[in-house]
């Protein structure tokens, strides 16, 4: 069955692509083997993330961008390609939130993408976030790989309507487009940490509404605070490291995957040729500003290639991915080894204030033979 699916995906057969995405989404027993077989065939697609608050017009923008790219020459998208007149094939993954109560979801992004129906060069897949909090589903990155292996030149990932901290997309996409709309907040919103920091390109959508110029100005001011592009690009690297570090929970001084894998001097190299995130006004429903936005995405891809940062980012992505999988897998293994009765007893003791949760987990992990952090006081009995 794996062989058939893999063969189907590599041949670009839509039924096989769809089934394989379901397989990785449900994390079935064959999922890992299938992804392993597809892995050598990935790494060709350019991955664009589109994120922003709910109702900012992400789906409509994706619809307009996809329509535009389908009309554009492939050579723009793939400089190495010799088939200049074939439009690029586009895969779209649109993520919507899962209800925390029922586990169900309404996936409505296709409503805004009806213009794309009937185009065999486009494949749209809706995904529920299934409890993941970073703006994507746990399986989104793997679904991107399936589309990549299936030969899609461009994969657009639309996140859950994101507020301020849903920044996972920056670890999945090569180019992150942050969509803002007029009237969302004052200038302080624009200097807060989070989603605005991950933008490679800004779109101020619904630019026909009052306050569009103000929104552009607030973003420009925020970017000017960074002054030179060097800071800006460094920023990206740092952000990803911060995200990885908070999730690590191991000895901070020991060798970390992203540190050993990131090419030395990548930061300095980027300081020479910086990228200034451009800001584009769009009215997605009327397809205004789309050409400029699309050009900015292509320019960013060009920049990543020319500056060598594409390689660097790929490495960061791989490091982050590896780390996430290790986290997931080790958690699963540890939980499987914990004795239920012992756990229940500890919970009870925590509730009774006999022991604090940190000490309790130390005891539990030590009993499994897992050493704690250096400098950590051993759990008192």
């Amino acid at each position, binding site marked *: 069955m794996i062989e058939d699916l893999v063969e189907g995906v590599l041949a670009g057969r839509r*039924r096989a692509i*769809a089934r394989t995405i379901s397989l990785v989404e449900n*994390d079935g027993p064959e999922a890992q083997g299938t992804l392993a077989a597809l892995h050598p065939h990935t790494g060709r697609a350019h991955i664009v993330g589109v994120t922003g608050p709910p109702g900012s017009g992400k789906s409509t923008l994706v619809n307009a961008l996809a329509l535009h790219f389908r009309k554009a020459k492939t050579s723009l998208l793939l400089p190495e390609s010799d088939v200049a007149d074939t439009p690029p094939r586009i895969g779209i993954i649109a993520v919507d939130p899962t209800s925390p109560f029922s586990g169900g979801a*309404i*996936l*409505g992004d296709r*409503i805004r993408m*009806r213009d794309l*129906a009937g185009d065999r060069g486009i494949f749209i897949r*809706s995904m529920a976030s299934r409890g993941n909090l970073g703006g994507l589903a746990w399986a989104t990155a793997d679904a991107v790989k399936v589309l990549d292996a299936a030969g899609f030149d461009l994969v657009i990932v639309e996140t859950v309507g994101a507020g301020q901290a849903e920044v996972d997309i920056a670890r999945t996409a090569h180019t992150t487009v942050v969509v803002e709309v007029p009237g969302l907040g004052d200038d302080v919103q624009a200097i807060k940490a989070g989603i605005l920091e991950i933008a490679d390109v800004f779109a101020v959508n619904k630019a026909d509404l009052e306050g569009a110029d103000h929104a552009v100005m607030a973003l420009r001011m925020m970017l000017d605070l960074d002054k030179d592009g060097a800071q800006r690009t460094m920023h990206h690297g740092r952000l990803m490291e911060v995200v990885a570090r908070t999730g690590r929970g191991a000895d901070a001084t020991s060798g970390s995957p992203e540190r050993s894998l990131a090419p030395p001097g990548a930061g300095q190299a980027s300081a020479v040729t910086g990228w200034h995130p451009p800001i584009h006004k769009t009215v997605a429903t009327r397809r205004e500003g789309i050409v400029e936005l699309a050009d900015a995405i292509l320019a960013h891809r060009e920049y990543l290639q020319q500056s060598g940062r594409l390689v660097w980012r790929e490495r960061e992505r791989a490091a982050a991915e590896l780390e996430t999988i290790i986290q997931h897998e080790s958690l699963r293994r540890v939980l499987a080894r914990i004795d239920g009765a012992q756990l229940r007893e500890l919970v009870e003791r925590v509730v009774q204030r006999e022991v604090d949760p940190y000490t309790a987990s130390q005891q539990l992990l030590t009993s499994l033979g897992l050493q704690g952090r250096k400098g950590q006081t051993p759990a008192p009995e």
Partner: protein
Amino acid sequence: MTERTIRVLVAKPGLDGHDRGAKVIARALRDAGMEVVYTGIRQTPEMIAEAALQEDVDVVGMSILSGAHMALFPKIMELLGEYGMDDVLVVAGGIIPDEDVPTLNALGIQGIFGPGTPTDRIVEFIREHAR
């Protein structure tokens, strides 16, 4: 997450633009823990079959009020078959006269729910019959 999540496409074929019912059903299925892909009104048979294929849904639910079901449903079933999606559960709701039901059943549309059907019954039917 040991139980697999049921994915449902809720589609409105044809030209009537009244989708209150479809939205009520979508909401009920969501509350029953299913993932519902809702594609909006005025869908052609091609759009519905293509969405079902790409989304790899377990169930296709169609709501129609315009009376064009005898023209549209056979086409949709034909396309689903063509795409190798014969194992998908197809259900329908809206205004469908009783005399059409046997024909639609013969096409492979297994559940037909008229106005006033409690949503629980639809949820139950889907849970029982989805692949």
